[in-house]
């Protein structure tokens, strides 16, 4: 296969999601290669804790952006590294404001929040936003290879859910400040203390970040989510559910990539499998009618480097319609 002249009509932010093992990482990398080949400065981002992007592409990629070839960069987000950076910033700021003794006293609590269930997602999410903000300057397109579905859906709906929560906190803080001001009419020390409110400022800044992320994610001109599935029963059901959920959250969903399709040359031994596959393909075509459906063949070996990705990447030219 050679590269085609067809240009991909890409969005700045493209997400590849789907059930575990369906081929998200391979598809994201093949797609990113297609964009790079047509001259778009492209960044591939992996959020998958297993970090198979490096394996798929066949080069070292780390938790910092590295250049892989002309027009192509890669990064594997490490939530632990990101959370550490975040905490370090907070701790430095804290030492400027409060005594070391107090910092010491609340160390254990910090540890609790730092390892709370949402922490990992939040750390990945912050890095997402940081990378998205670098669009235009360094990159024309960012392609996200996401973790298996459930994880990713939580991640993408984070700004909406937490945005509501933080709005509530801002209201509460305003109310408290209002009461403080009333009390402060007779209390100059208190009045001075509430002259400026870094707490309100911090909450507002965080809310604005969520708002920005939400605006980007729900703008179909800027963001799109493609699903990778295989012609099997469970991935079809999971895809249908995930599409519905993303739609409810206002996130644009694009095409479906049906990966690992057994080709006719698989031979008579696979005939039965191919019959079953044909049935599932029919199901996919009718169930998701109106959507772009891309069929990607199963290669004769696992994808272990750029050479194999390049074979697949021209097929992705059609994905964005």
């Amino acid at each position, binding site marked *: 296969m050679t590269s085609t002249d067809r240009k991909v009509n890409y969005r700045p932010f493209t997400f590849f999601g789907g059930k575990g093992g369906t081929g998200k990482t391979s598809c994201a990398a093949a797609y990113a290669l297609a964009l790079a080949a047509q001259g778009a400065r492209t960044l591939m981002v992996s959020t998958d804790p297993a970090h198979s992007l490096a394996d798929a592409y066949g080069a070292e990629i780390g938790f910092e952006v590295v250049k892989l070839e002309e027009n192509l960069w890669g990064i594997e987000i490490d939530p632990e590294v990101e959370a550490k950076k975040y905490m370090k910033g907070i701790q430095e700021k*804290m030492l400027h404001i*409060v005594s070391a003794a107090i910092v010491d006293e609340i160390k254990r609590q910090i540890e*609790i*929040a*730092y390892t709370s269930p949402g922490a990992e997602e939040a750390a990945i999410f912050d890095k997402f936003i940081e990378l998205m903000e670098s669009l235009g300057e360094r990159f024309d397109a960012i392609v996200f290879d996401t973790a298996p579905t459930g994880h990713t859906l939580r991640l993408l709906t984070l700004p909406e859910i937490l945005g509501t929560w933080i709005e*509530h906190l801002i209201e509460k803080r305003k*109310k408290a400040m209002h009461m403080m001001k009333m*009390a402060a009419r007779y209390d100059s020390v208190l009045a001075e203390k509430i002259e400026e409110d870094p707490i309100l400022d*911090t909450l507002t800044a965080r809310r604005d970040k969520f708002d920005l992320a939400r605006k980007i994610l729900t703008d179909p001109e800027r963001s799109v989510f493609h699903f990778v599935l295989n012609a099997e029963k469970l991935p079809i059901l999971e895809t249908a559910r995930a599409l519905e959920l993303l739609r409810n959250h206002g996130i644009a969903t694009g095409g479906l990539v049906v990966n690992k399709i057994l080709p006719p040359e698989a031979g008579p031994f696979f005939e039965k499998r191919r019959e079953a596959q044909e049935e599932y393909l029919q199901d996919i075509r009718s169930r998701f009618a109106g959507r772009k459906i891309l069929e990607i063949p199963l290669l004769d070996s696992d994808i272990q480097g750029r050479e194999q990705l390049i074979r697949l990447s021209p097929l992705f030219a059609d994905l964005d319609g």
Partner: protein
Amino acid sequence: MKKDRSALSKIWEFLCLFHHGTFVDKRMAVVRKEAYDINDNLMMLLFGDFLGIPNPISYYMLELLPYMAEDLVPWQRRMQNRKFIIAEKAAQYDFD
């Protein structure tokens, strides 16, 4: 029935206001107390997980720590000592 109750509560409100108006200092103390109470509740929403209450956003709340660290320890002590809270609440409604 409903009407009666709202009339009653109006009278009660009036009595409260009248009372507060008579004792400005006391009133300010109440306002101040209320402000602190709201802040205590806010602290609960921000840092509830420190007391074992799950908080969906606790990771992001860490960035408020530089400004709240000082209040955090006394707040935790207040929250953990429920008796103390009840005593505080009682003092608030002491209209002597």
